[in-house]
């Protein structure tokens, strides 16, 4: 770990007290604001009309950005976002693209107000550019934000912003990613807010300074103009709304949108039980050559109408798997928005007032300068979001009203592979650089009432997409041998996690080896956890088949569609590696599916039969994981019953004893749901946790602090066919398949693929027996 650099603290932006920020600004920067009376005086008609108009403005900005950008990661993967903020940059309206960015955009504006208002000043016609993840705006240096103050009658009225991932901004690694970086100086240079537009003019000196660092300066130049264009559209449209309705009315609507969203989220929180829920997760490997696990842990406490996320205990910053405070906040937002605010307008400035963050500096998701952070969004920030979602789902699962918002963890990262080499298909050889987009087709987590979406995408980029194979082959010297959904990759459960997909490519139209940079996680431990006894989805795997001789084999009419058919010498790709892909070789990627919900032995056998027909589950998986036996494609009821009993007996046989305790049962009739398997009931006059299936008392706070469950630790492969490789290939830590079962009926209550020293939050009785929800 590198030593902190004195003087770098100045660039760490944090959420602010808006009044204090406003008071700190120089007289040269008058703000436009409205009083609470003006906000209260809005009539419902005007509010709705202007609100809708602002939505339309934001939407137009996004359309413009998306259509003008030249980065596939924007145009195809939709890794971008845009926002309108009030005079202090609090987000009033955000786009529906990369939701993690929502947690970072306002931080950049706050910082700019603090550090640019006096010198060089903030004036009409300015736009700022920033890619410093400590300042905010984005989560790593590739996220570049362009944002502008909008003035009305000489007063600062609002901010618009447009942000997108740029393919390369320099640094030692292709795509600005170096898997062996030891600090940020090996990555793209973080650029704090700089005026790229002044007096409505793009400043050529700044633009040149900006694009000069990149391996693809033309694309970066095109995107810079796209962002400027989107902001210009936002400004024009916003000013015409002001012209029609008056500045005070528009501002009152903006403020009320945030207050309204905040109020609705607070109302919802108030109706949920108070308590503390915990989750811990891991990134396997932190950089090329590393073989350890890196833990992020969170304790979510809900009191009345407020949430606190406490990350104390998270591991120290390490290698490249770090993110700044902006990344931690972005991760939290990416879970809170869809799970808690799916039915509330995303006036994020208001929603973000409902939580605060507690974290130690210098940790994986609150890294201090000069930690390497290029893996920030898809590593630690993503994991942060997954863990927060896990806590929220535990809280929400108790209530039938909210279980629609409960979801096992989705694909836990975006496996990245960058290929760069020489395209020799044209008359002149040209260099190319391609980030393979396909791993965006991850699986979604299962829900109490539904299976996870198969190849549904990435949870934190709701509108992501992957390119067509033909577009990839048109642009790059590659032949895609296959791209398909992988059976058994969805986390087994009463509801199955969504399956993921795999792809295999071989060089085509190039005579020299291509460089290959790998960055991924979730290969030894699961990042796509199940819920309520559901199992994690598949572990990721990358394979390089050396000496596969594809050119000759294609010529001979062979089209392999499995790794076994590909043959050659197959190397497993490390999570972080720099390698190459030579002509004739094959590169295979299989990314993560979603976690399952509930015990797979409780899954409707007909649903399993349908999954087998649709190649979502193999017959082998059906028997081994779901205990469903098919005969001629139909469920063999008798054999299935026997097989399921056999599997339950196997659980009993292999488990460590649950330990001594009362063998009491509770009456399920009066019990209250905790999740798919657990209920809260009364026993001997005290609240206890019981098994929802057999009624056995599993936890009594008077006797002990932990649930009394039977425990099994076995090799990770015991989780099922979704574990695709040996953890020892990647890490030195011992990794196990751990399952806790009810010692009465042997229903799985919790399942995971975790390090042996994983802290078993699942056994924590306090998370289950908390105060009953308040009335109302």
């Amino acid at each position, binding site marked *: 770990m590198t030593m902190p650099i004195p003087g770098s603290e100045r660039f760490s932006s944090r959420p602010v007290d808006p009044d204090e920020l406003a008071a700190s600004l120089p007289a040269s920067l008058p703000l436009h604001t409205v009083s609470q009376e003006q906000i209260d005086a809005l*009539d*419902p008609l005007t*509010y*709705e*009309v202007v609100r*809708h*108009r602002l939505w*339309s403005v934001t*939407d*137009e900005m996004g*359309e*413009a950005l*998306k*259509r*003008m950008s*030249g980065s*596939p990661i924007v*145009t*195809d993967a939709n890794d971008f976002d845009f926002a309108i903020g009030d005079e202090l940059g609090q987000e009033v309206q955000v786009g*529906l693209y990369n939701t993690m960015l929502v947690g970072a955009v306002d931080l950049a504006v706050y910082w700019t107000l603090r550090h640019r208002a006096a010198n060089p000043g903030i004036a009409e016609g300015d736009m700022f550019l920033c890619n410093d993840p400590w300042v905010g705006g984005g989560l790593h240096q590739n996220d570049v934000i362009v944002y502008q103050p909008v003035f009305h009658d000489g007063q600062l009225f609002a901010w618009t912003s447009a942000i997108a991932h740029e393919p390369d901004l320099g640094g030692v690694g292709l795509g600005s990613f170096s898997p062996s970086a030891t600090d940020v100086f090996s990555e793209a240079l973080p650029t704090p807010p700089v005026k790229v537009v002044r007096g409505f003019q793009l400043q050529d000196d700044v633009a040149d300074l900006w694009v000069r660092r990149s391996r693809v300066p*033309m694309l970066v130049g*095109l995107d810079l*103009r796209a962002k*400027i264009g989107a902001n210009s*559209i936002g400004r024009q449209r916003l000013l015409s709304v002001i012209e029609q309705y008056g500045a005070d009315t528009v501002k009152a609507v903006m403020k009320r949108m945030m207050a309204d969203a905040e109020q*609705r989220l607070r109302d919802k929180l108030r109706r949920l039980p108070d308590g503390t829920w915990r989750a811990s997760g891991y990134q396997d490997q932190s950089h090329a050559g590393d073989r350890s696990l890196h833990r992020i842990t969170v304790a979510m406490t809900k009191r009345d109408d407020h949430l606190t996320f406490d990350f104390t205990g998270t591991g120290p910053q390490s290698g490249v798997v770090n993110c700044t405070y902006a990344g931690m906040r972005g991760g939290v937002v990416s879970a809170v928005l*869809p799970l808690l605010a*799916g*039915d*509330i307008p995303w006036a994020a400035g208001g929603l973000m007032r409902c939580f605060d963050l507690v974290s130690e500096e210098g940790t994986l998701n609150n890294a201090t300068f000069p930690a390497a952070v290029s893996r920030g969004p898809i590593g630690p920030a993503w994991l942060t979001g997954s863990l927060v979602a896990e806590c929220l789902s535990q809280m929400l699962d108790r209530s039938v009203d909210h279980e*629609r918002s409960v979801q096992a963890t989705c694909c836990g990262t975006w496996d990245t592979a960058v290929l760069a080499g020489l395209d020799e298909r044209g008359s002149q050889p040209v260099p190319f650089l391609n980030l393979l987009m396909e791993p965006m*087709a991850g699986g979604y987590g299962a829900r109490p009432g*539904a299976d996870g*979406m*198969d*190849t*549904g*995408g990435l949870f934190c980029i709701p*509108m*992501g*997409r*992957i*390119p*067509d*194979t*033909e*577009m990839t082959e*048109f*642009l790059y010297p590659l*032949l895609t*041998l296959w*791209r398909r959904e992988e059976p058994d990759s969805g986390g087994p459960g009463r509801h199955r996690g969504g399956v993921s*997909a795999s792809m295999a490519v071989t060089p085509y139209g190039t005579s020299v080896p291509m460089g290959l940079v790998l960055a991924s996680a979730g290969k030894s431990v699961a990042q796509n956890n199940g819920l309520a006894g559901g199992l994690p989805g598949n572990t990721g795997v990358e394979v390089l088949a050396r000496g596969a001789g594809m050119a000759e084999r*294609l010529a001979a*009419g062979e*089209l392999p*569609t499995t790794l076994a058919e590909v043959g050659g010498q197959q190397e497993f790709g490390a999570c972080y590696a720099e390698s190459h892909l030579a002509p004739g070789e094959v590169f295979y990627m299989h990314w993560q599916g979603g976690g399952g919900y509930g015990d797979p032995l409780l899954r409707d056998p007909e649903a399993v039969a349908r999954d087998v*027909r*649709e*190649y979502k589950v193999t017959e082998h998986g059906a028997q081994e994981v779901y205990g469903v036996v098919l005969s001629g494609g139909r469920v063999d009821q008798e054999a299935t019953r026997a097989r399921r009993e056999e599997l339950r007996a196997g659980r009993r046989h292999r488990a460590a004893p649950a330990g001594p305790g009362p063998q009491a049962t509770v009456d399920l009739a009066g019990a209250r749901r905790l999740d798919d398997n657990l209920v809260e009931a009364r026993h001997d006059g005290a609240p206890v946790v019981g098994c929802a299936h057999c009624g056995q008392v599993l936890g009594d706070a008077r006797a002990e602090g932990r649930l009394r469950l039977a425990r099994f630790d076995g090799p990770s492969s015991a989780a099922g066919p979704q574990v695709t490789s040996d953890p020892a290939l990647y890490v030195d830590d011992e990794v196990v398949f751990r399952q806790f079962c009810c010692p009465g009926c042997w229903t799985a209550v919790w399942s995971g693929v975790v390090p042996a020293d994983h802290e078993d939050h699942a056994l924590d009785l306090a998370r289950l027996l908390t105060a009953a929800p308040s009335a109302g």
Partner: protein
Amino acid sequence: MAYVIGVDVGGTFTDAVLDDDAGTIIAAKAPSTPPDYSRGVLDVLGVLAEQLGRPLEDVLTDTHHIAHGTTSSLNALVMGNVPPVGFLTTRGHRDSIYIMNVEGRYLGSSPHELQHVLGQTKSHGLLPKRHALEVTERIDRDGEVVVPLDEDQARAAIRALLDDGLRAIAVSLLWSFRNPAHERRLRELVHEMDPEVFVSLSSEVSPRIREYARNATTIMSTQIGPGLRDYLGTLEDGLRERGLRGPLLVMQSNGGAVAARQAPATAISTVGSVLTGGVVGSVALGQQLGHRNVISTDVGGTTFLVGLVVDGEPVRATTTVINHHPVNVPTLEVHAIGSGGGAIAWLDAGGNLQVGPHSAQAVPGPACYDQGGTEPTNTDANLVLGILPERGLLGGRKPLSLERAREAIRTRIAEPLGLSVEDAAAAIHAVQNAQTGDLLRKTVVEAGHDPRDFVLYAFGGAGPAHCAAYAAEVGVAEVVVPLGPVASAFSAYGLASSDIVVAAELSDPAAMPLDPVRVEKAFADLETQVREALDRQGVRYTAVSLDREIDMRFTMQLAELAVPVPGGPVDDAVVAQAGRAFERRYAELYGEGSGFAAAGIQAITFRVRGTGVLPFSPRLPELARAGSADPSAARTGSRPVDLADGAGPVDTPVYDYRALRAGHVLEGPAIVEVPTTTVVVPAGRTGTVDRLGNLSITPRQESSR
């Protein structure tokens, strides 16, 4: 005497318009008759014949052609009411249609649905995986065969599909638009085994790069092709038996028609035909009225459709979305921007008033229909405000319950907000107008135009009550409500006025500067295809025009822009001119300086559209002129009406459209009751009955009094 007839088969009604070459236009309506819609068509033709006082056989004998638009294929796709089909694709790539590029999860969703990620599904798969089989073959981006087609393996796959009872097979292979040999061979193999099986090839249905959309397009075309073939066959037989000698034409999404016999092979091209009828009608009416730029708004009970006419030409799109799948159909761009008269007003959890996007649909309908609906809609608000007559719609044939409307608004909106029922109704009306205005503005502006340069046409039952207000929201000065003899069947009028349009396209992606020889060859091949297709229609044209375009983009962009290219020989100058036209169009859409030629420009798809102009198309007849501008003869009385303009209820004159004559001028506020709709002329505006019987609404100072 020669007639041209347009028939618009909707889900509920079949409309028809007949025009003779002597200036007479009549319209008729009959119930649609699912599942065999052809009976409804014959019924409505019978009604037309009755109105003419001639036997149907005589009318059909004298009919030059019938142009026919149908919603049944689209409905079949949307409802999933299609026969099972098989799918053959390249080995390793079956799952393209299941992965759906991920975007199949959310394409075509409203903003509200987009935000609610946990409410989304991918359960709209095109077909079960056992019916999607891979064949061993591979072609590369240059059209070179990498792995030849394994015919034995292909036969086994086809056999498996046939053994499963499938009677239609879609074939879509990677890069088939560069080299269709394997697809064609597969069709031969299918027909060797069973010549009766319906086969669609992606290289014929949609020879465009990006396999997911091409696969989905080919599969959907195969799903509706046999049904369309059977339906049109039955209909054409029925018409021939009754004496029709001229061609039966089918409207396509691109705003032009093709011969019924030609339609099933590329059935997907007909899916949007009913949606586009109104835009084609607007083009025709615009020609007669001298309007070059028109915003066409068609507001029904459940839909609000917007199309654009720019410089006399309808604005086109190259892709549409059906059931969350992208579909490659050249189409007139028609945006569904929310709901119509049945849009439900509701309060969200924050107590904010919202209107739509949910609709009360036909059943139960607005609360005032008294069919069990309890939620307040636009229509209920309009009744409470006095805009709609208390005695009901359709001259009283559709009774309305003011009591139910008031009750719904009172309980759901007024009391929770602490407003009077009247104020709540006014708020609903105003929110609807403002939101419609936002969506209209977005639609026009995102197409790169300024709404102030347009005239707005409003038709459909629910549009004319709002149009003057939503037009004012976006700065449109003149609104025209088409009210002549075809008011109730404007879409059928559009069909009757359509020409034959045949398009052909081919992706041949390459970077600028393009090789002129390659471009010329691409266009020459496409033009040959288009001319042959025009010949196959069996119709006499007075003129044929061919339009070329290239879809271009800056390198790596997702979206392409269609750029027109002049006909004739192609040289470097023509190529360079196309590049400049692209940059110019790009700047129009996104602002000056937004483009960046240094990133490089790519041409992706070449397209030729051939228009065969038919010998005649209907012109609306002129209405008798009024003796003076004074419309009092048509005034039936007055009632208090609140137009949600802040003035509260104002005693407002009511006019009977049937008594209005060309030249009558109505000062707003005024209400015009038409049998099929109700028109609002707001205060400060003037309504003028034009020579064709349309009501033109303009700001008072611009009126031609």
